[in-house]
């Protein structure tokens, strides 16, 4: 018999994230257009208006790694320690230690911070480099990684708090 979720979180796009006691996470519902959380900005790629099959074909072309992506990933990986590199290659994200608690890079506009002062909570932050949309994604992580590692005060000074949630 299916167990009831431990927690249900409403996502910004109208869907729901169900968190179960055994660690499973399930997203339910239908995506709907929604505004970008940063005032004045738009989502990369815009909203989907084409039929699904056409969108899939287009995505297959668009997601092929470019030379710029390759350079950006190589630079980023050269700045990671061994554990961060393993994590990045496996999950696309990694933790960065700071005096204020670790921050996870890997999900644009939704960076998880585990504050030292609130060990049972997580903060979801939005921080991006200036004109970040012209950078390959790995360059964005390089930018945020160096800022966090060397000048964490500046990172937290500008960070926008999106959500506070209980740690799982």
């Amino acid at each position, binding site marked *: 018999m299916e167990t009831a979720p431990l927690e249900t979180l409403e996502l910004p796009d109208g869907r729901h994230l169900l968190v179960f006691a055994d660690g499973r996470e399930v997203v339910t519902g239908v995506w709907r257009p929604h505004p970008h959380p*940063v005032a004045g900005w738009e989502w990369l790629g815009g909203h989907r208006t084409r039929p699904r099959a056409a969108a899939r074909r287009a995505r297959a072309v668009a997601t092929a790694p470019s030379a710029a992506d390759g350079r950006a990933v190589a*630079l980023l990986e050269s700045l990671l320690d061994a554990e961060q590199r393993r994590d990045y290659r496996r999950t696309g994200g990694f933790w960065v230690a700071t005096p204020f608690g670790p921050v996870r890079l890997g999900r644009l506009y939704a960076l998880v911070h585990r504050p030292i002062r609130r060990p049972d909570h997580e903060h979801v932050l939005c921080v*991006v480099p200036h004109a970040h949309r012209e950078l*390959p994604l790995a360059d964005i992580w*390089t*930018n945020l990684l*160096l800022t966090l590692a060397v000048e964490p005060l*500046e990172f937290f000074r500008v960070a926008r708090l999106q959500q506070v949630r209980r740690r799982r």
Partner: protein
Amino acid sequence: MGTMRILDHTGDTTITWSVDDAESVAAAARVFDRLTRERKIPFARPAGAPAADAERIRTFDATADEIVWVRPVAGG
């Protein structure tokens, strides 16, 4: 040989210099000054060192192995 890496749409643009070549050092110093005026932020690191070993620099250091230029960050 020192290297500057400036994050951009190509991944990064690389500028190199050699401490034995005064002209290349002067050219790199000019790029450093220009990027500083553009409010970009330089972090120096020993060759191959992780981000935790990087340091923010304020003036051009011709003895640095690598200088990575990043952009100011902002929240929403």
